């Protein structure tokens, strides 16, 4: 069945295949170089950086494990990313529920206030944010990132979820209301299950952005035990600079979780990372 629908190769498409093929190699070769060389001893890397390791060495990974701090960085990132995503999902979905139901001019302005954040990078506010984090006593603490990350995720989250909640058929909500369900119950039992795909989109958008963020950890965190993974990577890169297998082990370990997750959920990733872009 699918075989019959498959288009036949056309000669006119050849330049297209060449471009796509060339680009695919340009993406895959660096990643291959990263992973395969992390399992080589340094001498083998310089002899042939593209081939399989003549002798498999886990020296780089052993050094990472022995250092101990890498694991701390990883856990820190896991913690702050998870908590921040939960924070964004709760705040954005309740706000979106309010904005979708409250139909007057004020709510439209409020939505615009949130949308303005899509255009304005929060980094511009860094100078004052630093002061704010300091006043809260959260300077040099992993948790100083939490309020910033929560605020950062709101514009996209509120935008995507409000649009989605507006598509929930009014009949369902009216039927629930007639049955005596209050707004909290409608939210928890009807809205949340219905908007799960949109929640996933918002979660993935924030997962990638927060996991990969360097800027705010860099300006807020100094202590080694508070570092996030990406901030830790910059430290280890400096420290191991000449030990290529160690450096590559760091880079591989830092990126493989996201790559695997992406390969499993590539549709949702693509949707999540482009969803904030297309309005109207």
């Amino acid at each position, binding site marked *: 069945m699918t075989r019959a629908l498959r*288009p036949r190769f056309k000669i*006119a498409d050849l330049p*297209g295949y060449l*471009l*796509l093929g060339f*680009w*695919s190699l340009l*993406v895959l070769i*660096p990643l291959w*170089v990263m992973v395969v060389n992390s399992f080589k001893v340094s001498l083998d890397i*310089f002899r042939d950086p*593209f081939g399989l390791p003549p002798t498999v060495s886990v020296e780089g990974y052993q050094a990472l494990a022995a250092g101990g701090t890498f694991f701390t960085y990883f856990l820190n990132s896991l913690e702050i990313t998870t908590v921040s995503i939960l924070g964004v999902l709760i*705040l*954005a979905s*309740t*706000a979106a*529920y*309010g*904005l979708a*139901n*409250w139909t007057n001019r*004020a709510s439209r302005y409020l939505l615009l*206030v*949130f949308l303005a*954040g899509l*255009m304005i*990078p*929060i*980094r*511009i*506010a*860094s*100078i*004052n*944010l*630093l*002061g*704010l984090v*300091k006043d809260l006593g959260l300077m040099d603490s992993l948790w100083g990132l939490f*309020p910033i990350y*929560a*605020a950062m995720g*709101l*514009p996209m989250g509120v935008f995507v979820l409000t649009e989605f909640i507006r598509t929930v058929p009014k009949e369902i909500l009216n039927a629930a209301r007639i049955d005596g369900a209050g*707004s909290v119950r409608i939210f928890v039992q009807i809205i949340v299950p219905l908007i799960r795909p949109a929640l996933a989109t918002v979660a993935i958008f924030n997962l990638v952005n927060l*996991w990969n963020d*360097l*800027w705010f950890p860099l*300006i807020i965190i100094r202590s080694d035990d508070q570092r996030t993974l990406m901030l830790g990577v*910059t430290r280890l890169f400096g420290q191991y600079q000449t030990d290529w297998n160690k*450096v590559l082990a760091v880079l591989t370990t830092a990126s493989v979780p*996201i790559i695997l997750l*992406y*390969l499993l959920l*590539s549709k949702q*990733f*693509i949707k999540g*990372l*482009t969803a904030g872009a*297309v309005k109207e």
Partner: protein
Amino acid sequence: MASMRKSLETDRNLFWLWWIVPALAVYLVFMAWPLFNSLRLSFYTGAGFKLDNFIGFDNYTRLFGGGEESTRFLGAFKNTFVFFFIHMLVQNSLGLAFALLLARKTIRGKPLFRTVIFIPATLAIVVTGFLWKLILNPQWGPLNLLLGKVGLGDLALPWLGDNHLALIVVSLVSSWQWVGIPTMIFLAAIQGISDDYFEAAEIDGASPTQVLWRIKLPLLRPIIGVIAVLTFTGNFNAFDVVFAMAGPNGPPAYATDILGTYFYRTGIAGQHPVGIPDMGLGAAVSTVTFVVLLAGVLVMQTLSRDPVGDRK
């Protein structure tokens, strides 16, 4: 009766407002207010976090009025535009080309190509920046080793050490990373074009080139605007790629210094040799960035407006 109805209505309004308040509070306190305050602080100076000395436009005079600070700032400003321009040229043209190809019915292996093109966009800029820095290493880097092996040793350049090359190379690596985003946005837009257009064109005997220039590109014009705006805001906010590949000082000789790194040095980290951040000056840099972003976004939205007239 009417007034009672009115008060019921207000209650209902206030009721929905309560659902919005928590998010609004976090958003205002940690985004809107700090932004506003950062703009205000650009008129002050002081030691460390204590910016209590009002100095009017002095910070701006230092940025624009000549002198060494001004040279650095305007250099970073110019480099940011070059950085943006290369993204528009390389990243977005490639993105459009990929999307047009991935939308073709006759191309096979589309899911594979789509997945591969998008991989770098999911990775941390720090990771890809460091990785490319190693690959481009003049002595040990795989790229120059490869060029040597295939007899193109003359092309094995010090990619990140050359004043003229470094910024271009960094911009190309960043384009490599982000090209998946415009690709997917263009692809969704092309797939959204009604088949009627293409059928009508086929009946009229239009060539593929005519279909591209007369149908697809004009219909994609608003999306090109969206992508230009995204690229602009993203690039004026860029920092990580230069930080990872070159360093916070934008070497060599400030050739890769962009607004992000300049802002980091002046406002956050403190510059060599003093090492104390000048937060008032940093705030002025943010304010200029903010104004440029706002102006740029407005210009691009006007340029890309649907010529057929506003939809809706």
